[in-house]
């Protein structure tokens, strides 16, 4: 049956058809929908959100050792978190097949960096496949599991944003049950004490040699001969961009199996074409191999190192051409940056924090990163998941070394990020005794990636009720004695909590507990946050003096009417009452919606 699927949906379909039994992931754009779609095959696959990518991969490794085909998926930076188990499972090899999906982000649409995870396959010495479109996504999952089991290796499938999120037509098949492989205890293979690991190290090289032979013969790497004046080597999305530009006027070496690269096939192709282009996003991963094999080519000396290698970029680099486009008053267009939603529980917190002086705000990864922007200006940096607390700790230690420094550090992260890698960072704060203030913005869900359940939400990915981790108890168990839980929409309480934390010369944690406005509320939420998002605020224009203080809340439901010189509240308001508390004239009233 034919279906129109995104690359992520097609991967999930391939996982189903390949007889996979276990899947784990941590959400991250552009990979999130892979596990969400795998989870829909509830009868056949157990799909779980893990607290972080390292845990996800480790759980998948355990499943593979125990005998079930298993898959982990994550965004490119997630693989950094999961690299430790990857590099050692690369030595032991698998029992049932194991595949790791990395979703890279050329162009950094939703990411803090543009790392090229093809380097991980080379670094960890494992096999790698790169699909170009949704059909290949589905088909390559099956091939990846076959390669994993035949060559006794974890396999990486490397996708990019445009492969993950582009839809194309896919011919779907049936599920192929592969059963469980028997579990046999084998310490020489799986227990990596140095005496065993040195032997495994040798096997890894032998395996790479066999994989290289496979790479040279697999139909995943194929040549399309057209005119031999020009040849193009490309993989992944770049192959479709190159075809868009050159059509059938040039010859192609299309690479679908990209670690190890097919040296013999590259020689065959490069030796026959007069001019060779290597078109790839990010690093010169293929180009370097082509050059090592002794061929000159046009690669990063012609195409940009950064961003996407879309057809317009290729056309400009190769032919110096740009499409004719309409000239118009583009400067009239006002930016439309993302903003915290009306009713977002982070608003009250950032409104209060932004007013503080001599505070370094150590940020993290989530919707709340938007706290850096106007009107709050309440974040100094963010590095990676969970780093708010640990970077904050280091910064506070250095400020504290300087006797006359007034600086205090407030580390800010969400509930899901705290579970991800914030807990171990908080242990550093208590263990090494800095007076860092940590604020956990508990909005009862994983927000930015589109509302995934997490260890604190009370539900699993496949909808089973589970034990919700109590953040306050967890924080206390980490050795924090000063803990306060507040409603962030209560500006006075929020302010008081910050005053309290800043007055302490000891570590403290403030937990703001209020649901994300976009969350589908559970029964427990409805009981705990009675009547939430069901009210509305409005401006009494008789009382409003047009002072614009309410605009400093940065709420998209509040705007200033330049003709009447009064504030106005739109229908997007859900009654968080932050603006109401800010108004010095009590001109904002609450009403039942």
């Amino acid at each position, binding site marked *: 049956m034919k279906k*129109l699927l995104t690359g992520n949906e097609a991967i999930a379909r391939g996982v189903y058809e390949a007889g996979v039994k276990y899947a784990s992931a941590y959400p991250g*754009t552009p990979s999130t929908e892979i596990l969400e779609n795998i989870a829909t095959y509830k009868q056949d696959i157990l799909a779980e959100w893990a607290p972080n990518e390292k845990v996800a991969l480790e759980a998948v490794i355990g499943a593979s050792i125990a005998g079930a085909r298993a898959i982990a998926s994550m965004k490119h930076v997630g693989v950094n978190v999961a690299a430790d188990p990857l590099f050692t499972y690369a030595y032991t090899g698998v029992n049932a097949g194991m595949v790791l999906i990395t979703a890279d982000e050329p162009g950094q649409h939703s990411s803090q960096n543009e790392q090229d995870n093809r380097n991980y396959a080379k670094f960890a010495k494992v096999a790698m496949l790169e699909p170009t479109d949704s059909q290949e996504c589905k088909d390559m999952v099956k091939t990846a599991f076959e390669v994993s089991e035949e060559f006794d290796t974890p396999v990486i499938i490397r996708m990019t944003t445009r492969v993950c999120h*582009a*839809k194309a037509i896919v011919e779907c098949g049936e599920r192929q049950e592969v059963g469980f492989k028997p579990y046999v205890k084998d310490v020489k293979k799986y227990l990596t004490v140095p005496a065993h690991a040195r032997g495994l190290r040798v096997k890894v090289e032998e395996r790479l040699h066999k994989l290289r032979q496979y790479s040279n013969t697999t139909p995943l790497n194929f040549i399309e001969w057209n005119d031999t004046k020009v040849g193009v080597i490309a993989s992944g999305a770049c192959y479709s961009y190159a075809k868009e530009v050159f059509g059938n006027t040039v010859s192609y070496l299309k690479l679908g199996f990209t670690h190890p690269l097919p040296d013999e096939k590259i020689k065959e192709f490069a030796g026959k074409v007069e001019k060779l282009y290597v078109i790839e996003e990010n690093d010169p991963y293929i180009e370097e191999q082509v050059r090592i094999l002794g061929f000159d080519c046009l690669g990063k000396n012609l195409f940009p190192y950064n961003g996407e290698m879309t057809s317009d970029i290729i056309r400009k680099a190769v032919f110096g051409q740009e499409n004719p486009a*309409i000239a118009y008053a583009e400067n*009239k267009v006002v930016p439309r940056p993302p903003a915290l939603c009306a009713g977002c529980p982070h608003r009250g917190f950032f409104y209060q924090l932004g007013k503080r002086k001599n505070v370094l705000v150590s940020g993290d990864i989530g919707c709340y990163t*938007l706290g850096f922007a106007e009107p709050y200006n309440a974040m100094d940096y963010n590095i990676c998941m969970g780093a708010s607390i640990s970077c904050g700790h280091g910064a506070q230690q250095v400020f504290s070394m300087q006797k006359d420094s007034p600086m205090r550090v407030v580390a800010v992260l969400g509930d899901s990020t705290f579970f991800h890698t914030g807990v171990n960072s908080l242990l550093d704060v208590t263990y090494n005794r800095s007076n860092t203030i940590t604020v956990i913005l508990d909005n009862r869900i994983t927000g930015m990636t*589109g509302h995934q359940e997490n260890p604190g939400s009370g539900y699993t990915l496949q909808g089973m009720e589970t034990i919700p981790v109590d953040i306050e108890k967890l924080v206390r168990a980490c050795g924090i004695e000063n803990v306060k839980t507040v409603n962030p929409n209560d500006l006075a309480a929020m302010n008081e909590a910050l005053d309290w934390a800043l007055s302490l010369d000891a570590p403290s944690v403030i937990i703001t507990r209020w649901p994300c406005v976009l969350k589908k509320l559970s029964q427990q939420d409805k009981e705990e946050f009675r009547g939430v998002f069901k009210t509305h605020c409005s401006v009494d224009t008789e009382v409003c003096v047009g002072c614009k203080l309410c605009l400093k809340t940065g709420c998209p439901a509040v*705007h200033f009417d*330049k003709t009447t010189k009064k504030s106005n509240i739109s229908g997007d308001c859900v009654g968080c009452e932050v603006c109401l508390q800010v108004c010095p004239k009590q001109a904002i009233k609450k009403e039942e919606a």
Partner: protein
Amino acid sequence: MVKSILLVGVGGQGTILASKLLTTGLMEAGYDVKMSEIHGMSQRGGSVSSQVRYGEKVESPVIEVGGADILVSFEKMEALRWLKYLKPNGKVIVNNYQINSMPILSGKFDYPEGIIEELSSKVQTTVADAAKHAAELGNPKVMNVILLGATIKSMGLESLHWDKIVRDNVKEQFAELNLKALQVGMGLV
């Protein structure tokens, strides 16, 4: 011959459902179809786009600058933001609907004046009052399907089996409403 349709708007306006119906219709009519969207942070009230390409064989899912045959904008200012992606002889369908972005709400910028005039002076422009028509149909949310109807007519795709496609892809209780919205949209071009 590959055709490219660029649907743009503001997160939450329903561009995704419109492009889903459109691409499903094109696939069922036997075209090769590719569509590209960017998800993630831009959903939080940011500018969004769905890029649809169809023909006998489509390679890249991404529309180039100067590459779209038609630009369908669910919001006025977004039409101007994305106009450079239109072919100089391409068409614009613009929803006569304004959503103020944060810098406008905060009073830092004014919403640009004369957008429709600027568009009309450069390219063949159809102005749709989709919000008004949606209100007449009794549900402001069907603005997206009205604009889809206008797009279908503009691209000469009205003979596809839209009745079935809509019924297959929206909840049963909303099928009639959406089919009416599609008809209203087709009537705007």
